């Protein structure tokens, strides 16, 4: 028998499009659910990849070859580093620079008569400190050789703000334990070592002589050959304190930044989960709307069956309608998500990084969700009794 029903592929699509176009308002509203889900996913991926790219670029410029060697806290007592920890570390071949600092533990006041403490400690440093940390001053100048025993001080960026000193006009001073120190400079930001921005830096000799602190360094900052960081790192603790290497803690400040990026990862996962929920809800919404659509369109379904549509034709029409509906949401979502990413990244001064695979995956996921959501309503449509459907009867 040659009487075969046949529906061309392009006509399957055209038929589904007709179905969607005839209910425009509903189509757009339904697609919106998926759009929001896909948009949040795309935005999360886009923003995180833009931020990662920006972070990597930042880390590259700051250098990941700076390590901090310090006396380990923990246990009952702190075992101070030996006095010659810095020269010993300098002796390692791969060490480019090293600089000891002494945390005096004393807090700074604006002047001898002001009892307000602002949570700013004084640190004893050598002039090498500025080279090792590769930091410059925004006002004045750093400590120089010959100033190590003078009552002069360089303020960290945050410390300067807290102390209310914005420039060197009028020769500002600060007070530590009754001693006045003349401010000779204010430091630039230290993205890798934000803790140092909350310190004021005095000469190591001044710290020992005027404030009577032990000359043992509390930390040594070490700059290492960038290609040999991993190899050098294990040598630092035994070199700094050969007697008690376990009492030495070695850390890499850039790891902290990376760790902060990891914290962002948690937020990202949360946002991705929210996007997932939006997609799930969107998918259920599509299934819902399609079920309603099938009920409303019994007459049309009956007509198509009378015109020769097979159950398969009806099923593919509705599955495809659901997929297109969702796919439309996917396209909207990708556009929206890309827009959000672009605006956000621009604000942060990042380069916009939108992975093309993520964009394709967004549309693909939407199509798949729609197809899946359409399966049940389409099966319902295909199962309709044609005689009942044309008569517009129920049951």
């Amino acid at each position, binding site marked *: *028998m040659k*009487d075969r*029903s*046949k529906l061309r592929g392009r006509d399957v699509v055209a038929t589904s499009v007709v179905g969607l176009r005839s209910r425009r308002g509903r189509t757009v509203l339904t697609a919106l659910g998926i759009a929001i889900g896909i948009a949040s996913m795309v935005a999360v991926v886009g923003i995180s990849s833009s931020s990662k790219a920006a972070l990597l670029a930042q880390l590259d410029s700051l250098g990941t070859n700076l390590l901090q060697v310090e006396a380990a806290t923990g246990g009952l007592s702190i075992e101070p580093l030996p006095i010659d920890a810095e020269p010993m570390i300098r002796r390692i071949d791969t060490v480019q620079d090293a600089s000891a600092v002494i945390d005096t533990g004393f807090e700074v006041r604006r002047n001898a008569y002001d009892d307000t403490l602002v949570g700013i400690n004084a640190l004893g440093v050598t002039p090498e400190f500025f080279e090792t940390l590769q930091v410059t001053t925004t006002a004045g100048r750093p400590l120089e050789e010959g100033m190590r025993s003078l009552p002069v001080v360089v303020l960290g960026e945050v410390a300067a703000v807290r102390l209310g000193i914005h420039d060197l006009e009028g020769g500002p001073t600060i007070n530590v334990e009754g001693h006045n120190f003349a401010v000779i400079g204010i430091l630039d930001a230290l993205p890798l070592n934000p803790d140092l921005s909350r310190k004021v830096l005095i000469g190591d000799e001044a710290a020992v002589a005027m404030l009577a602190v032990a000359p043992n360094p509390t930390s040594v900052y070490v700059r290492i050959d960038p290609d040999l960081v991993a190899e050098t790192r294990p040598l630092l603790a035994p070199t700094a304190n050969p007697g008690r290497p376990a009492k030495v803690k070695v850390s890499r400040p850039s790891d902290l930044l990376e760790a902060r990026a990891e914290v962002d990862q948690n937020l990202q996962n949360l946002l991705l989960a929210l996007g997932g929920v939006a997609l799930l809800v969107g998918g259920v919404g599509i299934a819902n709307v399609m079920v309603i659509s099938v009920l409303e369109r019994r007459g049309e379904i009956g007509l198509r069956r*009378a*015109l020769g549509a097979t159950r398969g034709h009806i099923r593919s029409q509705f599955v495809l309608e659901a997929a297109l509906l969702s796919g439309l949401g996917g396209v909207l979502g990708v556009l929206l998500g890309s827009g959000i990413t672009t605006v956000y990244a621009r604000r942060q001064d990042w380069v916009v990084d939108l992975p093309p695979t993520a964009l394709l995956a967004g549309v693909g996921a939407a199509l798949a969700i729609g197809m899946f959501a359409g399966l049940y309503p389409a099966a319902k449509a295909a199962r309709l009794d*044609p005689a009942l459907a044309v008569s517009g009867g129920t049951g």
Partner: protein
Amino acid sequence: MSTATESSLSSVPPNPGAAVLELQDVHRTYPGSPPVEALVGVDLRVEAGEMLAVVGPSGSGKSTLLNIMGTLDRPTRGTLLIEGTDTSKLNDRRLSGLRSARLGFVFQSFHLIETLSALDNVATGLLYRGATGRTRRKMAEVALERVGLGDRLHARPTKLSGGQRQRVAIARAIVAEPSLILADEPTGNLDTATGEGIVELLQRLNADGSTIVVITHDPDLAERLPRRVEVRDGAVLDGTVFDGTVLGGGVR
């Protein structure tokens, strides 16, 4: 009227005298409590080129009969032959194929798709034949011209009168050149004058060779058709009346 029948018989039928459709002892019982016996042993033959009216009171089983003739429904018992093919042996796909090629439907409620133009509505009559869009539209235009709507090709159904809508539906039913056109109360939603026009159109199509079965409970309409079949309580009362004689309605 008999002239129309003769002219159609002389013009087209591929297999003169062969039954386009044949029902043999067809029963249809709708399940339920109690079950409804909508058809109880119907025998009916429709020959190529015929035009017949199926009449009967509401609930007598006319629509059930038409749905079974159109393979939209299957008999609970008995046989339906379409151009010699036993439809009880066909699966859903084959039946769909049969409908797409050999049957045309006209419904009381038109069943037009509102977002499509008259032309595109008629073209859906060929959609499941696998014809290209171009061919479909070309044939749809011809069909619309045949029903007198050659000037309203691009109008949406909402812009058309009831009679025009039914003409579009009729054009859709004939566009694939089916062997049999089944119309269930085609004038049911139309006023008398408009319904008149539809009947005349169907008669003209029949004169041009189409085989047509019209369900109606309008006796005036039925009387104008060359053959009437009356259904009462699921049974065909009197198989065939070829003249204008009113059927004995009191038999019960």
